[in-house]
């Protein structure tokens, strides 16, 4: 936990430096007439300062607020994240119905190891019901995809 707090504060410090360099490319103005770069530049400095404080705090061994105890099963998290990202990439190409159907099947079968029967029936009803509610009843524009559904 100590290590992760140190790493995080260093990452924030780097982010602050990057933000400072980038905001210096914008017009700063003067304190009496601040322009577009003024606020981001001030914030970048403040961010650098607070990450230094957090860094020192972490070095001293304080890890207040960090989640202790049980560790997470990262495999499920990574698989779910992956499926969310893939969903984003294929959503418009596959169309609403097919994309949501496959998305739910994947989560139920590959991540959760439910039976095929359950996975298919949940996926089918969820994609159809949400399509009817959002697409037809509420008139939300949903992507049709290559099947033109």
């Amino acid at each position, binding site marked *: *936990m100590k290590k*992760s*707090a140190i790493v*995080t504060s260093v990452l*924030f410090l780097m982010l602050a430096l990057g*933000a400072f360099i980038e*905001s210096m490319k*914008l*017009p700063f103005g003067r*304190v*009496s*007439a*601040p322009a*577009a770069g*003024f*606020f*981001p530049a001030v*914030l*970048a400095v*403040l*961010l650098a300062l*607070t*990450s230094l*404080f*957090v860094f020192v*705090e972490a070095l001293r061994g304080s*890890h*207040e*607020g*960090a*989640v202790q105890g*049980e560790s*997470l*099963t*990262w495999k*499920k*998290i990574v698989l*779910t*994240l992956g499926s*969310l*990202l893939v*969903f*984003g*990439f294929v*959503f418009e190409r596959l169309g609403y119905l097919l994309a*949501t159907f496959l*998305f*739910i099947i994947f*989560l*139920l079968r590959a991540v*959760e190891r*439910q039976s095929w029967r*359950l996975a298919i029936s*949940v996926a089918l009803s*969820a994609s159809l019901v949400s399509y009817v509610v*959002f697409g037809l009843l*509420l008139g*939300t*524009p*949903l992507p049709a995809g290559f099947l033109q559904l």
Partner: protein
Amino acid sequence: MDTLANLGLGFSVALEPTNLLFCFTGVFVGTFIGVLPGLGPIAAIALLLPLTFKMAPATAIIMLAGIYYGAMYGGSTTSILVNIPGEAASVVTCLDGYQMARQGRAGPALGIAALGSFIAGTFGLVGLMFFAPVLGAAALRFGPPEYFALTFLGLTLISYLSRGSMFKALLMAIFGLLLGTIGTDPISGQERFTYGSLALGDGLGLVPVAMGVFGIAEVLDNLGKNLRGDVYENTIKGLLPSRKDWQESFWPIVRGSIVGFFIGILPGPSGAMSSFASYAMEKRLSRHPEKFGNGAIEGVAGPESANNSATAGAFIPLLSLGFPSNIVMALFVGALLIHGVQPGPLFMKNYPELFWGVVASMYVGNVMLLVLNLPLIGIWVRLLKVPYAILYPLILLFCLIGVYTLNNNVVEIFIMVISGIVGLLLRRVGFEGAPFLLALVLGPQMESSLRQSLLISRGSFEIFFSRPVSAVLMVLTLTFLLTSLIPALKTKRQKLAAEIGG
């Protein structure tokens, strides 16, 4: 008498059939989403926001408001029955509500939560009716320094009340402000940090980030933990609290309503703050504090009342100052602006039918919730009995649809997912999402009011201390900031924050 006439106008708007229908839709969907663990009012509003674009402004706001207080109701059901807070404001309800359920008293717990919320919601509305015009009149004299001080106070308060280190919370707030500068500069119109991306021109979308940090991160966290509380299903009977329950809950409800209302007016995490404040107060005032945490009905009645009257209180800065004190209120500002309605000091004068219509609809909505929810609890229980393994793909699906339909843009899906990962990782290391999100909300307002103030004062920071209202707010803010950094007082804050954070 004026108020009565206005209220009459309000009810004539609220009782129009269309408005009644959408008020109902709002409270129903709000409760539904509030019940689902990991989805709060933000997700619910995001799902239905696109629908409001085609509505009359009053109808739109009536429905969105319904979602908001409906979700508050729904959140408490989840807390009591499965010990998972449906949303942040009902975290404390878990403490005694779940214990009551385990002792077979789920019925009275749900009943008192609903009735307490109803009483407090009504109280909050009366307060809203009387305070909003007063503050609105005062707000006409608010200038940039006052608005800057308000945003500063809001961010300091939320950092002060975050779990863990104050530096980490402040860091998250500054990080949020920094990301808030992405997009078009509000004053000069210059593009900042967009790197040619069209989607970032209007700034980082609040909804995708909020749904990522709260919705997606929450789901992933629950997934990884592989655990889930048991639903207390043994037929819930006797929703109506007994006479003894009433006697024990009466004063907690009254006190919770009052405290919640005033905390609601403050900028910051008013829902969670008010329910915690009420819980702490009841525990201190109680003659048997040892019962708290073991199923004391006061521990459910007080906080549940407080967070509902805080909801009404939170509308005051929105409607009278145009100042969103939390993320949901920021979404309301967005919804109003789409219809060309500018919330602010002139709002009540320019749009009386809108203001009073929304106020009256909240009475109507509260009655609907009470009438609906007591019988509907059975349905919510069945919903909660669905295993999480099946529930969470559906929750994720709701998030995806909600975010996509806002602008029909896939980029927002990626923003949401990335915010979810970052939010989860940061939370594991002790960096809370709440200060970050409020900063993202208040950032643009903070920046423009700061820059305008400095223009007026020609670069002197004295302007924040030479005007009475902003001076008071600034002194308050600095007191919070400094005391949290002084070691001797630090532990006191941590204790407070630890209790709020659960």
